[in-house]
């Protein structure tokens, strides 16, 4: 009788462990989905900054920064135009994820232009 009781208890404990593991998995999945959507939206906006900078042939890094602030807000990040680099918000490399995109194109003066925009989320 005693042994059966122990088996019941052990079964119950195993079940609790399994259920807890399931809860953990479900919670993590929800959080990942939320951040992926945010990454997607930020990626689209970075793409907008790059493509508009290319079409308008913007060669002033501060103009790109203004566009960044208008579109992405004060979220920390950086802009690189050829060799010049400026930061938006605090220069904080400890933040977890960096989303960045870059383009290189030849402008009307036959000069190669490199633009990179990074956003920390």
């Amino acid at each position, binding site marked *: 009788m005693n042994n059966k009781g122990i088996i019941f208890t052990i079964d119950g404990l195993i079940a609790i462990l399994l259920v807890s593991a399931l809860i953990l998995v479900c919670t993590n999945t929800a959080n990942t989905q939320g951040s992926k959507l945010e990454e997607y939206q930020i990626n689209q906006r970075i793409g907008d900054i790059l493509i508009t900078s290319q*079409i308008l042939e913007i060669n002033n890094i501060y103009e790109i920064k203004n566009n960044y602030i208008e579109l992405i807000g004060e979220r920390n990040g950086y802009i690189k135009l050829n060799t010049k680099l400026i930061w938006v918000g605090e220069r904080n490399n400890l933040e977890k994820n960096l989303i960045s995109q870059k383009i290189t194109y030849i402008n009307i003066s036959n000069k190669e232009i490199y633009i990179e925009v990074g956003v920390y989320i």
Partner: protein
Amino acid sequence: MTLAINKKAQILVLDILMLLIIILLILSIEEKNINNYTLNIKHEIKNEKIIQEQLVLDKLISDCNYLAKQNKTKVCYSNEIELKNINKIDRNICYLKIGLNTYLNTNKEKTNIYKRGIIYNNVFEIIEVGFCE
């Protein structure tokens, strides 16, 4: 003899009680789990709707049948827009603002408003597009 039977009975009752407590605990955890799962599904449906709307917005600013600009050589430019096809845009879009000017605003309640960067009249502008049910 009676003492031994009493002891066994006590153990049996304790076992059953323990089992009942564990079952109740598992049921309450499962209920929480199911609630979380339902919330996740609702969240997923909401996310799916947001992605769908973002795709509509993408098409809106990159397809020349909608707002994207077509140059003289019939090349369609993504992110450079003109408003000649504004009447063709998706029926779910009820709000359209470019820079400071609002070009479409119905009285319907907006569910989501999205911002994108575009070129309008050769200037960088923010386009805000709102979707309604």
